[in-house]
């Protein structure tokens, strides 16, 4: 394993130290491993808390800031954070309008956030609602599994609901909106290589020189199936087709197209993928209103990519366009 780390145990705290040092707009609660806005809780605003295992940077810590999250809890690499972290985050961002937990649908994340919500309910001070993101179409028989995974839609949801919270929509409206974004978004991912979990020290899986994993999540795990790697336009179809098939139709409504690198795939390849995705969408009569291309929800250094399409209406688009100022996503301010 070759990594720029001090030791596997220090990866997460070292990264948090770096974030704190690099971003004066952020404050890091090192004891609880929570990234917060330096400006503190916003009176009268719904607080948005997310979190999850580390290794997906810039998500979630890099999405804390004006127009997006209020706090992000960092777990160990690929390991959900714990309820006490979430509880600390919840209390820290509460501005009296309630707190929304944004939870990706993984057994661990769901259970830990559930326990955090139970803690909050027991204390009684803060009203907490949760939304569970599950946009991954790779998990087909989701009735008989832990359900679909939460992947790319998380980024879009945090941006859009972040904007809504910033304009002081209330907790119920934010929860409703979050469910709407989740319900209208679908994703599919693939991997060219495994990644190396620092504590494990070896690649999670091995792939042949002409193979890729289709239908992966974001935890370096193998996907639904192993396929032979063809040219980019074939890969693009394998990603986009299942997304389009499952995407809620909405006669003519445009989409937000998000082409994401799993970490190791460089921008030059990602733009090539975006070109193919745009071409496929055009052919399918799906018009792209906004786009996002880059490494936003990653699996350490894994090479691979995912495609997320979000069926959007005017409200979603104007919330998407609203100013945001975080280390990972920034425009309009």
């Amino acid at each position, binding site marked *: 394993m070759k990594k720029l780390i001090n030791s*596997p145990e220090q990866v997460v705290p070292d990264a948090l130290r770096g974030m704190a040092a690099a971003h004066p707009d952020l404050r890091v609660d090192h004891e609880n491993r929570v990234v917060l806005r330096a400006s503190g809780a916003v009176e009268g605003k719904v607080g948005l808390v997310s979190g999850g*295992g580390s290794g997906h940077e810039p998500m979630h810590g890099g999405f804390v800031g004006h127009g997006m999250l209020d706090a992000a809890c960092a*777990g*160990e*690499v*690929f*390991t*959900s*954070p*714990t*309820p*006490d972290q979430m509880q600390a985050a919840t209390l820290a961002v509460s501005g009296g309008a309630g707190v929304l937990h944004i939870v990706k649908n*993984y*057994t*661990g994340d769901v*259970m*830990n956030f*559930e*326990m955090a919500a139970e803690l909050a309910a027991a204390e009684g001070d803060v009203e907490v609602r949760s939304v569970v993101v599950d946009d991954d179409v*790779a*998990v*087909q*028989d989701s009735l*008989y*599994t*832990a359900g679909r*995974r939460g992947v790319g839609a998380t980024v879009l949801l945090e941006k859009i609901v972040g904007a809504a919270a910033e304009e002081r929509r209330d907790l119920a409206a934010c929860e409703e909106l979050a469910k709407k974004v989740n319900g209208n978004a679908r994703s599919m991912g693939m991997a060219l290589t495994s990644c190396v*979990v620092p*504590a*494990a020290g*070896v690649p*999670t*899986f091995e792939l042949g020189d002409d193979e890729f994993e289709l239908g992966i*999540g974001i*935890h*370096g*795990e*193998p996907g*639904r*199936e192993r396929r032979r790697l063809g040219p980019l336009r074939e890969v693009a179809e394998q990603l986009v087709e299942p997304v389009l098939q499952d995407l809620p139709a909405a006669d003519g409504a445009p989409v937000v197209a998000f082409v994401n690198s799993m970490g190791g795939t460089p921008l030059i390849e990602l733009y090539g993928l975006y070109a193919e995705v745009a071409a496929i969408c055009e052919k399918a009569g799906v018009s792209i209103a906004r786009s996002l291309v880059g490494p936003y929800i990653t699996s350490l250094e894994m090479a691979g990519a995912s495609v997320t399409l979000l069926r959007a209406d005017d409200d979603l688009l104007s919330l998407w366009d609203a100013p945001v100022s975080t280390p990972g996503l920034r425009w309009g301010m």
Partner: protein
Amino acid sequence: MADADQASLAALTDWLRRFAAAVARDERHLTDLDAKIGDADHGSNLRRGTAAVVEALDADPPGDVGAAFKQAGMTLVKTVGGASGPLYGTFMLRFGTTAGAVDALDATALGTALRAGYDGVVARGKAEPGDKTMVDVLEPCLTVFDEAVAGGAGAAAAARAAADAAPERRDATAPLLARKGRASYLGERSVGHVDPGSASTTLLLESLADALAGP
């Protein structure tokens, strides 16, 4: 310390220490199992958590069984994360609550506390036997425990019977198709691999039998 009929506070905290030692010993194996059908962190997750449990025991020795397991449960909840943190944490918390502020458990009380822990795991994780999770070891082995007690066995003998039944149940998870946890995302590809949580639960039951058998 051990008495064939009773599980003392000392023996039960020894259980926690032995479990931590077993997890530390098998950390890589647990992580390797998780790499096959999960995300390669089960060993490091549990090692981090059980080491913290031992640290807490040392720093703040609990005065009764209930306190010991509530402390262990809270520690696991706060340090493990992932799926196994809430599950093992809930197991310990419910075990402690059910055991109460006593300094020993007889076989029946031990069985009741274990069963309460198990119920907590099911309430939290909603897995059923056959879903390829730790439940596939816990459920049948606790039944073995109860049957041994019904047949007149003391705490140590019942725990040994439960532990002896565990490896087979653990290995029996291999052919199953996962329906809970990360492994479920793999669909058919989860078949053929042992569930990592079943392996750690086997360590949990073996540690209990060893602790009650005495040094």
